[in-house]
């Protein structure tokens, strides 16, 4: 939280105060804080590990995997807390605060790709997983996924969970209503010519359907296009590999911005910012017909829309080529009182076996090579999505996915520029000033 010098001063002040407090009040009785429990040295004792993640629906897809762990490890029980839908806006800032203050973070915590830049630059926050022998996992991962879990001091601090991939999720019933094809191959062909085709399909849809929009929100579609365009522009988005802000110079950003604002401007979006209450309700109230779907998004959709819409969703290929949006890592904060067991848990959850469980539950694409090669994955279908052969849809591209470089302040910049996008969509940012405000917001957040 503070540099050492300040910390020393604060401690001195604090100790004087504690003494003073001892005289005036004796009300530590209310303390039921977590600080009291002893160390983990007694291994036979039953311990509880807290696993903290983020994301809507069944993002991460850890329910089955955690249940399995809990039955196999009666003495190390896992409490699974999915804290919030929103990574940049709620989860990550709070996590950083807990990491700094030394209390509040779980024993194993999920980190989105957008937070990894900063996490790597703050070795003081996380346990060195190498100490617990997890260096041995290296062979399981593609080089880029592994290397992103190595911090600025060269220590392994995080293991990869899933990778992004890209597809379009769509509502067959709404497509039918609009007179569009419903079969996933035909739907894919509908926009095989690229995003302009997608927009055309959208206009056709909007011509027939009035009570729903074609696309969920400007920021989902923006992220889809950005991930595709980044792959074409040196795999960078807001920062170049020297941590310099290039939000105004990177053609990938401008292309994604233009395309997203165009779709929103032509009335194709439901104007529901993703990972908010309104967006969640939008699933239940059928307010939109498509959204960009990386693998993990399948779990968000099924978990948010619920059983009522089972079979009404399907998955088609994405216009504009492959992209890699999202994908996360698991790390063990230094403050964990049971780092050994936590490291074990992190390793288990990122094991090929658990990744396949998560894939079945939420659709999260495994990041380990053995899981990716598993025939079970290749032949997998997803019941919720009308038995779509997601193994076939995502499988071929999964190995060719390119890692996108994300700067230390990526999450900060992403949060701010996407707010401008939302403002543009809602009308509080005038369209002609949108790009300028977008760039300014990015510069301010990076500054």
């Amino acid at each position: 939280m503070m540099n050492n010098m300040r910390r020393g001063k604060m401690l001195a002040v604090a100790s004087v105060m504690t003494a003073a407090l001892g005289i005036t009040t004796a009300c530590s009785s209310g303390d039921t804080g977590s600080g009291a429990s002893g160390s983990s040295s007694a291994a036979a004792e039953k311990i509880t590990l807290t696993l903290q993640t983020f994301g809507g629906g069944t993002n991460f897809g850890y329910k089955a995997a955690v249940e399995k762990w809990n039955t196999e490890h009666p003495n190390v029980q896992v409490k699974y807390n999915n804290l919030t839908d929103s990574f940049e806006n709620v989860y990550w800032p709070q996590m950083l605060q807990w990491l700094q203050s030394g209390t509040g973070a779980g024993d194993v915590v999920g980190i989105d790709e957008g937070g990894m830049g900063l996490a790597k630059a703050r070795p003081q926050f996380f346990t060195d997983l190498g100490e617990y022998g997890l260096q041995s996992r290296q062979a399981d991962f593609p080089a880029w996924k592994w290397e992103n879990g190595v911090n600025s001091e060269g220590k392994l601090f995080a293991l990869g969970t899933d990778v992004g991939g890209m597809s379009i999720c769509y509502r067959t019933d709404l497509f039918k209503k609009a007179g569009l094809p419903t079969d996933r191959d035909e739907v894919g062909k509908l926009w095989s010519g690229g995003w302009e085709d997608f927009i055309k399909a959208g206009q056709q849809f909007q011509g027939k359907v009035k009570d729903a929009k074609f696309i969920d929100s400007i920021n989902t579609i923006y992220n889809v296009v950005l991930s595709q365009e980044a792959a074409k522009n040196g795999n960078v988005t807001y920062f170049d590999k020297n941590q310099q802000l290039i939000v105004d110079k990177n053609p990938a950003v401008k292309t994604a911005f233009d395309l997203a604002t165009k779709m929103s401007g032509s009335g194709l979006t439901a104007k529901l910012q993703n990972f908010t209450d309104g967006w969640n309700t939008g699933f239940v109230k059928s307010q939109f017909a498509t959204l960009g779907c990386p693998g993990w998004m399948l779990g968000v959709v099924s978990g948010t829309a619920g059983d009522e819409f089972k079979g009404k969703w399907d998955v088609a290929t994405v216009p504009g080529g492959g992209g890699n949006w999202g994908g996360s890592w698991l790390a063990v904060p230094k403050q964990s009182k049971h780092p050994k067991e936590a490291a074990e848990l992190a390793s288990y959850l990122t094991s090929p076996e658990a990744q396949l469980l998560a894939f079945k539950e939420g659709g999260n694409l495994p990041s380990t090579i053995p899981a990716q090669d598993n025939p079970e994955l290749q032949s997998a279908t997803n019941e919720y999505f009308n038995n779509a052969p997601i193994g076939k849809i995502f499988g071929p591209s999964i190995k060719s996915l390119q890692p996108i470089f994300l700067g230390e302040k990526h999450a900060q910049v992403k949060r701010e520029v996407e707010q401008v996008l939302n403002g543009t969509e809602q009308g509080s940012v005038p369209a002609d000033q949108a790009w300028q405000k977008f760039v300014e917001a990015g510069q301010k957040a990076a500054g």
Partner: protein
Amino acid sequence: MTAITQAGPARRSGARSKRDPFRATPLTKVALGFTVLLSIFPIYWMVIIASRTNRDAVDVPPPLLPGGNLGENVQRVLNTEDAHFITGLVNSLIVTSTVTFSVVIISTFAGFAFARLHFRGRNLLLGSILITMMVPLQQMGIVPLYQLMVSLGWVGTLKAVILPYLLNGFGVFMMTQYTDQAVPDELVEAARVDGASTMRIWWNVILPAVRPGMAVLALQTFMLNWNEFMWPLIVLSPENPTVQVSISFLTAAHSTDYVLIFTGTALSVLPLVIVFVAFGRQIVGGLMEGAVKA
């Protein structure tokens, strides 16, 4: 305590002439009825949603009558482990009671000293309290307070949300005013002549006389502290929250589950509402008496 509500000017008025300015016109009654309706509606609606399903919650038109899922929903809230709802309720009770007790005692002490004792620097010190009443301490000092809690290792503990609230300039000010009005100087002097020590006077003379004021202060402190949000949100963790923080985490983690959120919200509100209805007469009476005297 209830005397004041009874003895309004209306009661005493015998004349029912046309000119009687205290006659309630039908319009007044309708307006009052409407106001009460508006006051109750959101609480009512909270219970309605809590008794229904998620699908109903986003219906148009919105549901206005209770459904049959209340019991099940309550069960679900209590079973939602990551909300730590019960912990939150218990924590809030601990924090709020401790804070209320301390504020009342500290304020009664200081109020006695400022109103009835004579010492050097009295006006200066009292003036300084009046000025500090304007400082929103937990907001202004949020950064250093947080750093202080980090240094003490108190982040995430209840100490962090109790100690900064133990001082309350408003409480001292109010008890000073109240003591000044409720305890005649002669009473203190008489006790002095009888040889009573200051603390004995506080116990035997002051305390019985200012009890209604203490009750009002307790009530206000309790309600303010129960609702404290910003500082607990910053300094507590989801595992060990106060009830407000618990609900806020509930909304963050289960944003699709309106019914769960509303049931949790209703559960957090109902204890206070029940207390309020049960002791309504005393609370209103006490509040009004405290308002006049202080």
